Protein backbone atom coordinates (compact mmCIF):
# COMPACT_ATOMS: atom_id res chain seq x y z
CA UNK A 1 0.00 0.00 0.00
CA UNK A 2 2.89 2.30 0.91
CA UNK A 3 4.49 1.61 -2.43
CA UNK A 4 1.19 2.37 -4.16
CA UNK A 5 1.00 5.72 -2.35
CA UNK A 6 4.55 6.59 -3.40
CA UNK A 7 3.80 6.10 -7.05
CA UNK A 8 3.08 9.23 -9.02
CA UNK A 9 0.81 9.11 -12.04
CA UNK A 10 2.68 9.67 -15.29
CA UNK A 11 1.66 12.70 -17.30
CA UNK A 12 2.10 11.55 -20.87
CA UNK A 13 0.05 14.41 -22.26
CA UNK A 14 2.07 17.16 -20.61
CA UNK A 15 4.69 17.38 -23.37
CA UNK A 16 1.86 17.87 -25.83
CA UNK A 17 0.55 20.94 -24.02
CA UNK A 18 2.64 23.44 -26.01
CA UNK A 19 0.91 21.98 -29.06
CA UNK A 20 -2.15 24.19 -28.42
CA UNK A 21 -0.36 26.81 -30.50
CA UNK A 22 -0.39 24.55 -33.57
CA UNK A 23 -4.16 24.71 -34.32
CA UNK A 24 -4.14 28.45 -33.57
CA UNK A 25 -1.31 29.01 -36.03
CA UNK A 26 -2.86 26.64 -38.57
CA UNK A 27 -6.11 28.62 -38.36
CA UNK A 28 -4.26 31.90 -38.85
CA UNK A 29 -2.41 30.51 -41.88
CA UNK A 30 -5.66 29.15 -43.32
CA UNK A 31 -7.34 32.54 -42.93
CA UNK A 32 -4.44 34.38 -44.56
CA UNK A 33 -4.11 31.91 -47.41
CA UNK A 34 -4.73 33.24 -50.90
CA UNK A 35 -3.80 32.11 -54.38
CA UNK A 36 -1.97 35.29 -55.37
CA UNK A 37 1.47 33.74 -55.37
CA UNK A 38 0.63 30.42 -57.02
CA UNK A 39 1.87 31.52 -60.45
CA UNK A 40 5.12 32.61 -58.87
CA UNK A 41 5.48 29.29 -57.06
CA UNK A 42 4.71 27.39 -60.25
CA UNK A 43 7.32 29.48 -62.05
CA UNK A 44 9.87 28.77 -59.35
CA UNK A 45 9.39 25.01 -59.27
CA UNK A 46 9.01 24.82 -63.05
CA UNK A 47 12.39 26.54 -63.49
CA UNK A 48 14.05 23.74 -61.52
CA UNK A 49 13.87 21.58 -64.63
CA UNK A 50 15.04 24.34 -66.95
CA UNK A 51 17.99 26.08 -65.34
CA UNK A 52 19.84 28.72 -67.31
CA UNK A 53 22.92 27.58 -69.22
CA UNK A 54 24.13 31.08 -70.03
CA UNK A 55 27.93 30.97 -69.98
CA UNK A 56 28.40 34.41 -68.42
CA UNK A 57 26.01 33.44 -65.66
CA UNK A 58 27.69 30.08 -65.10
CA UNK A 59 31.07 31.83 -64.84
CA UNK A 60 29.69 34.28 -62.26
CA UNK A 61 28.06 31.47 -60.31
CA UNK A 62 31.26 29.43 -60.44
CA UNK A 63 33.22 32.34 -59.00
CA UNK A 64 30.56 32.84 -56.32
CA UNK A 65 30.67 29.15 -55.48
CA UNK A 66 34.45 29.27 -55.13
CA UNK A 67 34.18 32.20 -52.70
CA UNK A 68 31.56 30.30 -50.70
CA UNK A 69 33.69 27.15 -50.59
CA UNK A 70 36.78 29.23 -49.70
CA UNK A 71 34.90 30.81 -46.79
CA UNK A 72 33.55 27.46 -45.64
CA UNK A 73 36.91 25.69 -45.85
CA UNK A 74 38.84 28.32 -43.92
CA UNK A 75 36.22 28.80 -41.23
CA UNK A 76 35.74 25.05 -40.87
CA UNK A 77 39.44 24.35 -40.60
CA UNK A 78 40.04 27.14 -38.09
CA UNK A 79 37.02 26.25 -35.97
CA UNK A 80 37.93 22.54 -35.87
CA UNK A 81 41.54 23.25 -35.00
CA UNK A 82 40.90 25.84 -32.29
CA UNK A 83 37.75 24.02 -31.19
CA UNK A 84 39.75 20.84 -30.55
CA UNK A 85 42.43 22.70 -28.58
CA UNK A 86 39.86 24.64 -26.55
CA UNK A 87 37.78 21.49 -26.14
CA UNK A 88 40.74 19.64 -24.67
CA UNK A 89 41.46 22.54 -22.33
CA UNK A 90 37.82 22.85 -21.27
CA UNK A 91 37.48 19.16 -20.52
CA UNK A 92 37.25 18.61 -16.78
CA UNK A 93 38.81 15.18 -17.11
CA UNK A 94 41.89 16.45 -18.94
CA UNK A 95 42.24 19.52 -16.75
CA UNK A 96 42.13 17.33 -13.65
CA UNK A 97 44.66 14.95 -15.14
CA UNK A 98 47.07 17.75 -16.07
CA UNK A 99 46.82 20.11 -13.12
CA UNK A 100 44.69 18.21 -10.58
CA UNK A 101 41.93 20.83 -10.69
CA UNK A 102 38.87 21.20 -12.90
CA UNK A 103 38.27 24.89 -12.11
CA UNK A 104 40.12 26.37 -15.15
CA UNK A 105 38.15 24.15 -17.51
CA UNK A 106 34.86 25.38 -16.02
CA UNK A 107 35.95 28.99 -16.45
CA UNK A 108 36.94 28.37 -20.02
CA UNK A 109 33.52 26.86 -20.72
CA UNK A 110 31.86 29.97 -19.34
CA UNK A 111 34.02 32.19 -21.55
CA UNK A 112 33.21 30.13 -24.64
CA UNK A 113 29.45 29.95 -24.06
CA UNK A 114 28.61 33.50 -25.32
CA UNK A 115 30.48 32.86 -28.57
CA UNK A 116 28.10 30.11 -29.61
CA UNK A 117 25.02 31.82 -28.24
CA UNK A 118 25.08 34.15 -31.26
CA UNK A 119 24.20 32.72 -34.65
CA UNK A 120 26.86 33.06 -37.33
CA UNK A 121 24.55 35.41 -39.20
CA UNK A 122 24.51 37.83 -36.27
CA UNK A 123 28.28 37.57 -36.01
CA UNK A 124 28.46 38.26 -39.74
CA UNK A 125 26.30 41.36 -39.53
CA UNK A 126 28.18 42.64 -36.47
CA UNK A 127 31.60 42.09 -38.00
CA UNK A 128 30.44 43.57 -41.29
CA UNK A 129 29.56 46.78 -39.46
CA UNK A 130 32.85 46.78 -37.60
CA UNK A 131 35.28 45.72 -40.30
CA UNK A 132 33.57 46.41 -43.60
CA UNK A 133 33.38 43.95 -46.47
CA UNK A 134 36.38 41.71 -46.16
CA UNK A 135 36.92 38.04 -46.87
CA UNK A 136 37.91 37.44 -43.25
CA UNK A 137 34.59 38.78 -41.96
CA UNK A 138 32.62 35.84 -43.30
CA UNK A 139 35.32 33.43 -42.17
CA UNK A 140 35.38 34.85 -38.65
CA UNK A 141 31.57 35.02 -38.47
CA UNK A 142 31.36 31.27 -39.02
CA UNK A 143 34.52 30.33 -37.15
CA UNK A 144 33.61 32.10 -33.89
CA UNK A 145 30.44 30.19 -32.99
CA UNK A 146 31.67 26.99 -34.62
CA UNK A 147 34.88 27.03 -32.57
CA UNK A 148 32.90 27.36 -29.39
CA UNK A 149 30.48 24.65 -30.47
CA UNK A 150 33.32 22.34 -31.46
CA UNK A 151 35.04 22.95 -28.13
CA UNK A 152 31.84 22.03 -26.34
CA UNK A 153 31.43 18.83 -28.35
CA UNK A 154 35.07 17.80 -27.83
CA UNK A 155 34.94 18.49 -24.10
CA UNK A 156 31.65 16.65 -23.68
CA UNK A 157 32.89 13.67 -25.67
CA UNK A 158 36.01 13.42 -23.55
CA UNK A 159 34.23 13.92 -20.26
CA UNK A 160 31.51 11.42 -21.06
CA UNK A 161 34.04 8.80 -22.08
CA UNK A 162 34.66 6.15 -19.47
CA UNK A 163 38.41 6.05 -19.03
CA UNK A 164 39.69 3.36 -16.67
CA UNK A 165 42.38 2.74 -19.30
CA UNK A 166 43.70 6.25 -18.63
CA UNK A 167 44.17 5.33 -15.02
CA UNK A 168 45.75 1.98 -15.95
CA UNK A 169 48.36 3.63 -18.21
CA UNK A 170 49.01 6.30 -15.61
CA UNK A 171 49.82 3.57 -13.10
CA UNK A 172 52.28 2.14 -15.62
CA UNK A 173 54.13 5.45 -15.60
CA UNK A 174 52.82 6.91 -18.86
CA UNK A 175 53.11 10.71 -19.04
CA UNK A 176 49.84 12.69 -19.02
CA UNK A 177 49.92 13.72 -22.68
CA UNK A 178 51.19 10.36 -23.93
CA UNK A 179 48.47 8.74 -21.86
CA UNK A 180 45.76 10.97 -23.34
CA UNK A 181 47.06 10.34 -26.81
CA UNK A 182 47.08 6.57 -26.37
CA UNK A 183 44.07 5.88 -24.17
CA UNK A 184 41.69 8.68 -25.08
CA UNK A 185 42.34 9.97 -28.57
CA UNK A 186 41.62 6.67 -30.41
CA UNK A 187 38.36 6.37 -28.49
CA UNK A 188 37.04 9.83 -29.33
CA UNK A 189 38.68 10.50 -32.70
CA UNK A 190 36.18 8.52 -34.77
CA UNK A 191 33.13 10.31 -33.49
CA UNK A 192 34.96 13.64 -33.63
CA UNK A 193 35.90 12.92 -37.24
CA UNK A 194 32.24 12.39 -38.08
CA UNK A 195 31.28 15.55 -36.28
CA UNK A 196 33.96 17.56 -38.06
CA UNK A 197 32.81 16.24 -41.43
CA UNK A 198 29.31 17.32 -40.55
CA UNK A 199 30.55 20.77 -39.54
CA UNK A 200 32.01 21.18 -43.04
CA UNK A 201 28.54 20.74 -44.49
CA UNK A 202 27.21 23.23 -41.95
CA UNK A 203 30.00 25.69 -42.77
CA UNK A 204 29.12 25.49 -46.45
CA UNK A 205 25.47 26.26 -45.69
CA UNK A 206 26.46 29.08 -43.35
CA UNK A 207 28.79 30.59 -45.96
CA UNK A 208 25.89 30.51 -48.41
CA UNK A 209 23.61 32.15 -45.88
CA UNK A 210 26.10 34.93 -45.16
CA UNK A 211 26.28 35.53 -48.89
CA UNK A 212 22.52 36.04 -48.98
CA UNK A 213 23.00 38.78 -46.40
CA UNK A 214 25.65 40.54 -48.43
CA UNK A 215 28.95 38.94 -47.50
CA UNK A 216 29.62 37.74 -51.03
CA UNK A 217 29.78 34.36 -52.69
CA UNK A 218 27.07 32.25 -54.22
CA UNK A 219 24.49 33.39 -51.68
CA UNK A 220 24.66 36.94 -53.02
CA UNK A 221 24.13 35.71 -56.58
CA UNK A 222 21.15 33.62 -55.49
CA UNK A 223 19.61 36.54 -53.65
CA UNK A 224 19.97 38.85 -56.65
CA UNK A 225 18.45 36.25 -58.98
CA UNK A 226 15.54 35.71 -56.62
CA UNK A 227 14.87 39.40 -56.10
CA UNK A 228 14.69 39.91 -59.85
CA UNK A 229 12.50 36.78 -60.14
CA UNK A 230 15.02 35.13 -62.47
CA UNK A 231 14.14 31.63 -61.36
CA UNK A 232 16.08 29.87 -64.11
CA UNK A 233 19.26 31.71 -63.08
CA UNK A 234 18.46 30.92 -59.47
CA UNK A 235 18.15 27.22 -60.18
CA UNK A 236 21.46 27.17 -62.05
CA UNK A 237 23.12 28.30 -58.82
CA UNK A 238 21.09 25.96 -56.64
CA UNK A 239 21.91 22.92 -58.76
CA UNK A 240 25.57 23.89 -58.80
CA UNK A 241 25.54 24.02 -55.03
CA UNK A 242 23.62 20.74 -54.83
CA UNK A 243 26.28 19.02 -56.93
CA UNK A 244 29.05 20.34 -54.65
CA UNK A 245 27.17 19.24 -51.52
CA UNK A 246 26.53 15.79 -53.00
CA UNK A 247 30.21 15.41 -53.92
CA UNK A 248 31.22 16.50 -50.44
CA UNK A 249 28.84 14.03 -48.84
CA UNK A 250 30.09 11.26 -51.10
CA UNK A 251 33.72 12.05 -50.30
CA UNK A 252 33.07 12.09 -46.56
CA UNK A 253 31.06 8.88 -46.75
CA UNK A 254 33.63 7.05 -48.86
CA UNK A 255 36.59 8.13 -46.75
CA UNK A 256 34.65 7.26 -43.57
CA UNK A 257 35.84 10.55 -42.14
CA UNK A 258 39.47 9.39 -42.24
CA UNK A 259 40.36 12.28 -44.53
CA UNK A 260 38.87 14.83 -42.16
CA UNK A 261 41.94 15.39 -40.01
CA UNK A 262 44.41 15.75 -42.91
CA UNK A 263 41.89 17.95 -44.72
CA UNK A 264 41.60 20.16 -41.66
CA UNK A 265 45.34 20.81 -41.74
CA UNK A 266 45.56 21.23 -45.50
CA UNK A 267 42.52 23.50 -45.90
CA UNK A 268 44.27 26.80 -45.01
CA UNK A 269 47.26 25.93 -47.20
CA UNK A 270 44.95 25.42 -50.15
CA UNK A 271 42.37 28.09 -49.40
CA UNK A 272 44.60 31.14 -48.90
CA UNK A 273 46.37 30.97 -52.30
CA UNK A 274 43.00 30.10 -53.79
CA UNK A 275 41.46 33.22 -52.20
CA UNK A 276 44.30 35.32 -53.63
CA UNK A 277 43.67 33.89 -57.09
CA UNK A 278 40.03 34.99 -56.72
CA UNK A 279 41.20 38.57 -55.96
CA UNK A 280 39.57 38.49 -52.54
CA UNK A 281 40.49 41.15 -50.01
CA UNK A 282 42.62 39.19 -47.57
CA UNK A 283 44.08 42.22 -45.82
CA UNK A 284 43.86 42.56 -42.04
CA UNK A 285 40.39 43.90 -41.14
CA UNK A 286 40.43 47.59 -40.24
CA UNK A 287 39.02 46.94 -36.77
CA UNK A 288 42.47 45.76 -35.82
CA UNK A 289 44.03 48.98 -37.08
CA UNK A 290 44.01 52.37 -35.31
CA UNK A 291 42.63 53.90 -38.52
CA UNK A 292 39.25 52.27 -37.91
CA UNK A 293 36.62 55.06 -37.93
CA UNK A 294 34.90 53.32 -35.02
CA UNK A 295 37.68 54.55 -32.79
CA UNK A 296 36.90 58.17 -33.63
CA UNK A 297 34.70 60.18 -31.30
CA UNK A 298 31.91 61.10 -33.73
CA UNK A 299 31.15 57.55 -34.78
CA UNK A 300 31.39 56.35 -31.21
CA UNK A 301 28.90 58.96 -30.06
CA UNK A 302 26.39 58.20 -32.79
CA UNK A 303 26.76 54.51 -32.06
CA UNK A 304 26.09 55.15 -28.38
CA UNK A 305 22.99 57.22 -29.13
CA UNK A 306 21.70 54.54 -31.53
CA UNK A 307 22.20 51.92 -28.85
CA UNK A 308 20.42 54.07 -26.29
CA UNK A 309 17.42 54.80 -28.49
CA UNK A 310 16.80 51.21 -29.67
CA UNK A 311 13.54 49.68 -28.38
CA UNK A 312 15.35 46.95 -26.47
CA UNK A 313 12.39 45.77 -24.42
CA UNK A 314 10.17 45.30 -27.48
CA UNK A 315 12.93 43.59 -29.40
CA UNK A 316 13.71 41.19 -26.59
CA UNK A 317 10.07 40.40 -25.92
CA UNK A 318 9.30 39.71 -29.56
CA UNK A 319 12.44 37.53 -29.86
CA UNK A 320 11.44 35.60 -26.76
CA UNK A 321 7.89 35.23 -28.07
CA UNK A 322 9.07 33.85 -31.40
CA UNK A 323 11.46 31.48 -29.62
CA UNK A 324 8.69 30.17 -27.40
CA UNK A 325 6.35 29.73 -30.36
CA UNK A 326 8.94 27.85 -32.40
CA UNK A 327 9.89 25.71 -29.36
CA UNK A 328 6.24 24.86 -28.72
CA UNK A 329 5.82 23.63 -32.28
CA UNK A 330 9.12 21.71 -32.17
CA UNK A 331 8.25 20.04 -28.84
CA UNK A 332 4.64 19.19 -29.52
CA UNK A 333 4.95 18.44 -33.22
CA UNK A 334 6.78 15.08 -33.26
CA UNK A 335 4.89 13.11 -30.53
CA UNK A 336 1.58 12.82 -32.46
CA UNK A 337 3.57 10.91 -35.08
CA UNK A 338 3.89 8.10 -32.54
CA UNK A 339 0.11 7.61 -32.64
CA UNK A 340 0.50 6.06 -36.09
CA UNK A 341 0.58 2.24 -36.14
CA UNK A 342 4.11 0.80 -35.87
CA UNK A 343 3.97 -0.71 -39.36
CA UNK A 344 3.14 2.66 -40.91
CA UNK A 345 5.93 4.28 -38.95
CA UNK A 346 8.39 1.64 -40.03
CA UNK A 347 7.42 2.13 -43.67
CA UNK A 348 7.60 5.90 -43.25
CA UNK A 349 11.06 5.65 -41.74
CA UNK A 350 12.26 3.35 -44.51
CA UNK A 351 10.88 5.71 -47.11
CA UNK A 352 12.72 8.62 -45.55
CA UNK A 353 15.99 6.74 -45.40
CA UNK A 354 15.75 5.38 -48.91
CA UNK A 355 13.96 8.24 -50.57
CA UNK A 356 15.69 11.23 -49.07
CA UNK A 357 18.83 12.31 -50.82
CA UNK A 358 21.91 11.66 -48.73
CA UNK A 359 22.74 15.36 -48.69
CA UNK A 360 20.62 18.13 -47.26
CA UNK A 361 18.99 19.86 -50.24
CA UNK A 362 20.65 23.27 -50.42
CA UNK A 363 18.14 24.59 -52.96
CA UNK A 364 15.46 24.73 -50.29
CA UNK A 365 17.89 26.27 -47.83
CA UNK A 366 18.84 28.99 -50.22
CA UNK A 367 15.27 29.62 -51.23
CA UNK A 368 14.12 29.81 -47.62
CA UNK A 369 16.88 32.26 -46.73
CA UNK A 370 16.41 34.43 -49.72
CA UNK A 371 12.62 34.52 -49.74
CA UNK A 372 12.01 35.05 -46.04
CA UNK A 373 15.11 36.94 -45.13
CA UNK A 374 15.12 34.99 -41.87
CA UNK A 375 17.69 32.60 -40.54
CA UNK A 376 17.23 28.92 -40.67
CA UNK A 377 18.39 26.99 -37.67
CA UNK A 378 21.41 24.89 -38.43
CA UNK A 379 21.53 21.29 -37.35
CA UNK A 380 24.26 20.93 -34.80
CA UNK A 381 24.85 17.23 -34.76
CA UNK A 382 25.68 14.59 -37.34
CA UNK A 383 22.82 12.84 -39.02
CA UNK A 384 23.89 9.58 -37.47
CA UNK A 385 22.92 10.97 -34.06
CA UNK A 386 19.40 11.83 -35.16
CA UNK A 387 16.54 9.97 -33.63
CA UNK A 388 14.35 8.25 -36.25
CA UNK A 389 11.47 10.66 -35.74
CA UNK A 390 13.24 13.85 -34.96
CA UNK A 391 16.50 15.28 -33.88
CA UNK A 392 16.81 17.46 -30.88
CA UNK A 393 20.40 18.28 -31.76
CA UNK A 394 21.38 17.52 -28.23
CA UNK A 395 24.54 15.70 -29.17
CA UNK A 396 25.86 12.21 -29.42
CA UNK A 397 24.18 9.34 -27.64
CA UNK A 398 25.75 8.55 -24.30
Amino acid sequence: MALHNDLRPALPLLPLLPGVVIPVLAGKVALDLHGGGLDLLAGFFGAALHPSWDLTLIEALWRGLQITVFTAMLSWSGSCLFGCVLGFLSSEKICTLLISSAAPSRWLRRVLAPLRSLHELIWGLLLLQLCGLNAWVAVAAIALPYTSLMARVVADQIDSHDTPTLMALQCMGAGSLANLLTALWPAVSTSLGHHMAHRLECALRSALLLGVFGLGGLGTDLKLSLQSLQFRELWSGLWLLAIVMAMLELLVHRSRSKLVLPAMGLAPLIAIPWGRSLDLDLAIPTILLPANPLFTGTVRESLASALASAPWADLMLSTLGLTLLASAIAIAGPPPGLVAPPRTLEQHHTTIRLGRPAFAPPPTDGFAFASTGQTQSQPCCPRSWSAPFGNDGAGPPR
Partner: protein
Amino acid sequence: MIGVLELEEVAFTGRLRPLSLRINPGEHICLLGRSGAGKSTLLQLANGSLKPDHGQVRWDGTALPQLSRRRRCDIGTLWQDLLLVEELNVVQNINAGALGRHSLFWALRNLVGTLNEGACHEVMLQVGLESDLLFTSVAALSGGQRQRVALARLLRQEPSLVLADEPLSALDPALSELVLDRLLIQSSCLVSLHRPDLACRFDRVIGLVDGELVLDEPATGLNPDDLTWLYTTI
Protein backbone atom coordinates in the same frame (compact mmCIF):
# COMPACT_ATOMS: atom_id res chain seq x y z
CA MET B 1 66.51 -2.68 -0.63
CA ILE B 2 65.67 -2.47 -4.33
CA GLY B 3 62.06 -3.19 -5.20
CA VAL B 4 60.43 -3.22 -1.79
CA LEU B 5 56.76 -2.34 -1.57
CA GLU B 6 55.56 -1.38 1.89
CA LEU B 7 51.97 -0.83 2.94
CA GLU B 8 51.89 0.82 6.32
CA GLU B 9 48.59 0.75 8.24
CA VAL B 10 46.78 1.19 4.94
CA ALA B 11 42.99 1.33 5.06
CA PHE B 12 40.12 2.14 2.75
CA THR B 13 36.78 2.92 4.32
CA GLY B 14 34.20 0.20 3.89
CA ARG B 15 36.50 -2.08 1.92
CA LEU B 16 39.77 -2.65 3.75
CA ARG B 17 40.67 -2.43 7.41
CA PRO B 18 44.11 -1.12 8.40
CA LEU B 19 46.81 -3.56 7.40
CA SER B 20 50.56 -3.55 6.99
CA LEU B 21 52.34 -5.57 4.39
CA ARG B 22 55.81 -5.74 2.95
CA ILE B 23 56.65 -7.35 -0.36
CA ASN B 24 60.34 -8.12 -0.57
CA PRO B 25 62.34 -8.39 -3.78
CA GLY B 26 62.10 -11.87 -5.28
CA GLU B 27 59.06 -12.74 -3.22
CA HIS B 28 56.02 -14.34 -4.86
CA ILE B 29 52.86 -13.87 -2.84
CA CYS B 30 49.46 -15.47 -3.32
CA LEU B 31 46.47 -13.41 -2.20
CA LEU B 32 43.38 -15.43 -1.32
CA GLY B 33 39.91 -14.46 -0.23
CA ARG B 34 36.27 -14.59 -1.23
CA SER B 35 34.78 -12.18 -3.71
CA GLY B 36 34.36 -8.84 -1.95
CA ALA B 37 37.01 -9.67 0.65
CA GLY B 38 39.09 -6.66 -0.45
CA LYS B 39 41.66 -8.29 -2.75
CA SER B 40 41.17 -5.85 -5.66
CA THR B 41 41.13 -2.90 -3.26
CA LEU B 42 44.43 -4.03 -1.78
CA LEU B 43 45.98 -4.35 -5.23
CA GLN B 44 44.64 -0.92 -6.29
CA LEU B 45 46.08 0.64 -3.15
CA ALA B 46 49.35 -1.11 -3.85
CA ASN B 47 49.63 0.24 -7.41
CA GLY B 48 48.46 3.74 -6.50
CA SER B 49 45.26 3.80 -8.56
CA LEU B 50 43.37 4.16 -5.28
CA LYS B 51 44.40 6.58 -2.55
CA PRO B 52 44.21 5.10 0.95
CA ASP B 53 42.03 6.86 3.52
CA HIS B 54 44.65 6.04 6.07
CA GLY B 55 48.27 4.97 5.99
CA GLN B 56 50.85 5.10 3.27
CA VAL B 57 52.17 2.98 0.44
CA ARG B 58 55.90 3.25 -0.30
CA TRP B 59 58.06 1.90 -3.09
CA ASP B 60 61.72 1.69 -2.04
CA GLY B 61 61.01 4.20 0.70
CA THR B 62 59.26 6.76 -1.54
CA ALA B 63 55.52 7.37 -1.16
CA LEU B 64 53.68 6.33 -4.36
CA PRO B 65 52.33 9.82 -5.23
CA GLN B 66 55.90 11.16 -5.14
CA LEU B 67 57.27 8.49 -7.46
CA SER B 68 58.73 9.73 -10.72
CA ARG B 69 57.26 8.53 -14.00
CA ARG B 70 60.22 6.25 -14.65
CA ARG B 71 60.04 4.64 -11.23
CA ARG B 72 56.32 4.05 -11.62
CA CYS B 73 57.26 1.66 -14.44
CA ASP B 74 58.72 -0.61 -11.76
CA ILE B 75 55.25 -1.58 -10.60
CA GLY B 76 53.16 -3.39 -13.18
CA THR B 77 49.54 -4.43 -12.90
CA LEU B 78 47.57 -7.11 -14.65
CA TRP B 79 44.05 -5.78 -14.20
CA GLN B 80 41.03 -7.97 -13.72
CA ASP B 81 39.24 -6.07 -16.52
CA LEU B 82 42.47 -6.06 -18.57
CA LEU B 83 41.94 -2.35 -19.49
CA LEU B 84 43.22 -2.62 -23.02
CA VAL B 85 42.69 0.23 -25.49
CA GLU B 86 39.93 -1.31 -27.57
CA GLU B 87 40.46 0.95 -30.59
CA LEU B 88 44.14 0.01 -30.97
CA ASN B 89 45.69 -3.14 -32.37
CA VAL B 90 47.75 -5.74 -30.53
CA VAL B 91 51.19 -4.21 -31.18
CA GLN B 92 50.01 -0.72 -30.15
CA ASN B 93 48.50 -2.12 -26.95
CA ILE B 94 51.65 -4.05 -26.10
CA ASN B 95 53.77 -0.97 -26.72
CA ALA B 96 51.52 1.01 -24.37
CA GLY B 97 53.25 -0.92 -21.61
CA ALA B 98 56.49 0.90 -22.41
CA LEU B 99 54.99 4.42 -22.49
CA GLY B 100 56.55 5.24 -19.13
CA ARG B 101 60.06 4.83 -20.50
CA HIS B 102 59.56 6.83 -23.66
CA SER B 103 58.75 10.34 -24.85
CA LEU B 104 55.53 11.86 -26.12
CA PHE B 105 56.89 11.64 -29.65
CA TRP B 106 57.34 7.91 -29.21
CA ALA B 107 53.70 7.64 -28.08
CA LEU B 108 52.65 9.56 -31.20
CA ARG B 109 54.70 7.25 -33.42
CA ASN B 110 53.11 4.25 -31.73
CA LEU B 111 49.70 5.58 -32.73
CA VAL B 112 50.45 6.29 -36.37
CA GLY B 113 52.82 3.47 -37.27
CA THR B 114 54.46 0.24 -36.24
CA LEU B 115 57.04 0.61 -33.53
CA ASN B 116 59.42 -1.91 -31.93
CA GLU B 117 57.82 -4.78 -33.76
CA GLY B 118 60.63 -7.12 -32.72
CA ALA B 119 60.23 -6.50 -29.00
CA CYS B 120 56.48 -6.96 -29.25
CA HIS B 121 56.93 -10.15 -31.22
CA GLU B 122 59.21 -11.49 -28.53
CA VAL B 123 56.75 -10.93 -25.67
CA MET B 124 53.94 -12.32 -27.81
CA LEU B 125 55.91 -15.54 -28.18
CA GLN B 126 56.44 -15.65 -24.42
CA VAL B 127 52.71 -15.57 -23.78
CA GLY B 128 51.84 -17.93 -26.63
CA LEU B 129 50.20 -15.41 -28.95
CA GLU B 130 50.41 -16.07 -32.68
CA SER B 131 52.53 -13.48 -34.47
CA ASP B 132 49.89 -12.99 -37.17
CA LEU B 133 47.75 -11.26 -34.56
CA LEU B 134 50.24 -8.38 -34.36
CA PHE B 135 48.06 -5.95 -36.29
CA THR B 136 44.67 -7.29 -35.25
CA SER B 137 42.42 -4.96 -33.30
CA VAL B 138 42.13 -6.16 -29.70
CA ALA B 139 38.37 -5.74 -29.94
CA ALA B 140 38.36 -8.66 -32.38
CA LEU B 141 40.22 -11.06 -30.09
CA SER B 142 38.85 -13.83 -27.90
CA GLY B 143 38.87 -13.55 -24.11
CA GLY B 144 41.96 -15.74 -23.75
CA GLN B 145 43.85 -13.83 -26.42
CA ARG B 146 42.97 -10.51 -24.80
CA GLN B 147 44.21 -11.81 -21.47
CA ARG B 148 47.53 -12.71 -23.07
CA VAL B 149 47.79 -9.31 -24.79
CA ALA B 150 47.39 -7.72 -21.35
CA LEU B 151 50.11 -10.03 -20.04
CA ALA B 152 52.34 -9.18 -23.01
CA ARG B 153 51.83 -5.46 -22.28
CA LEU B 154 52.89 -6.13 -18.71
CA LEU B 155 56.03 -7.98 -19.84
CA ARG B 156 56.83 -5.14 -22.24
CA GLN B 157 56.69 -2.79 -19.25
CA GLU B 158 59.46 -4.86 -17.58
CA PRO B 159 58.35 -4.18 -14.00
CA SER B 160 60.19 -5.23 -10.86
CA LEU B 161 56.95 -6.03 -9.08
CA VAL B 162 53.81 -7.47 -10.67
CA LEU B 163 50.38 -7.05 -9.13
CA ALA B 164 47.85 -9.36 -10.77
CA ASP B 165 44.14 -9.30 -10.04
CA GLU B 166 42.57 -12.69 -10.68
CA PRO B 167 44.65 -13.31 -13.79
CA LEU B 168 43.43 -16.89 -14.19
CA SER B 169 39.69 -16.27 -14.15
CA ALA B 170 38.03 -17.30 -17.41
CA LEU B 171 41.11 -19.13 -18.66
CA ASP B 172 41.33 -22.81 -19.56
CA PRO B 173 43.79 -25.00 -17.57
CA ALA B 174 46.55 -24.85 -20.19
CA LEU B 175 46.35 -21.06 -20.49
CA SER B 176 46.14 -20.70 -16.71
CA GLU B 177 49.34 -22.66 -16.40
CA LEU B 178 51.08 -20.51 -19.00
CA VAL B 179 49.97 -17.23 -17.43
CA LEU B 180 50.94 -18.36 -13.94
CA ASP B 181 54.35 -19.52 -15.17
CA ARG B 182 54.95 -16.11 -16.73
CA LEU B 183 53.95 -14.32 -13.53
CA LEU B 184 56.14 -16.52 -11.35
CA ILE B 185 59.29 -15.84 -13.37
CA GLN B 186 58.93 -12.12 -12.58
CA SER B 187 61.25 -10.88 -9.86
CA SER B 188 58.39 -10.43 -7.38
CA CYS B 189 54.63 -10.59 -7.55
CA LEU B 190 51.40 -10.34 -5.63
CA VAL B 191 48.71 -12.42 -7.34
CA SER B 192 45.10 -12.63 -6.22
CA LEU B 193 43.50 -16.00 -6.89
CA HIS B 194 40.50 -18.11 -6.09
CA ARG B 195 42.57 -21.27 -6.28
CA PRO B 196 44.00 -22.40 -2.90
CA ASP B 197 45.44 -25.44 -4.71
CA LEU B 198 47.94 -23.15 -6.45
CA ALA B 199 49.16 -21.52 -3.23
CA CYS B 200 52.00 -24.02 -2.91
CA ARG B 201 53.63 -22.54 -5.99
CA PHE B 202 54.18 -19.23 -4.22
CA ASP B 203 56.58 -18.26 -1.43
CA ARG B 204 53.98 -16.77 0.83
CA VAL B 205 50.20 -16.77 1.20
CA ILE B 206 48.08 -13.96 2.57
CA GLY B 207 44.36 -14.18 3.14
CA LEU B 208 41.65 -11.56 3.46
CA VAL B 209 38.23 -11.95 5.03
CA ASP B 210 35.82 -9.02 4.94
CA GLY B 211 38.63 -6.52 4.38
CA GLU B 212 40.77 -7.85 7.19
CA LEU B 213 44.15 -9.51 6.85
CA VAL B 214 43.67 -12.86 8.57
CA LEU B 215 46.49 -14.93 7.14
CA ASP B 216 50.12 -14.17 6.30
CA GLU B 217 52.32 -17.24 6.28
CA PRO B 218 55.00 -18.93 4.19
CA ALA B 219 53.49 -21.22 1.60
CA THR B 220 55.83 -24.05 2.49
CA GLY B 221 54.03 -26.60 4.58
CA LEU B 222 50.58 -25.14 3.98
CA ASN B 223 47.97 -27.66 2.94
CA PRO B 224 45.53 -26.28 0.34
CA ASP B 225 42.68 -27.94 2.22
CA ASP B 226 43.60 -25.84 5.24
CA LEU B 227 42.93 -22.69 3.23
CA THR B 228 39.34 -23.45 2.25
CA TRP B 229 38.10 -21.72 5.42
CA LEU B 230 38.99 -18.43 3.76
CA TYR B 231 36.13 -19.14 1.36
CA THR B 232 33.62 -20.49 3.83
CA THR B 233 33.77 -17.84 6.56
CA ILE B 234 30.67 -15.66 6.58
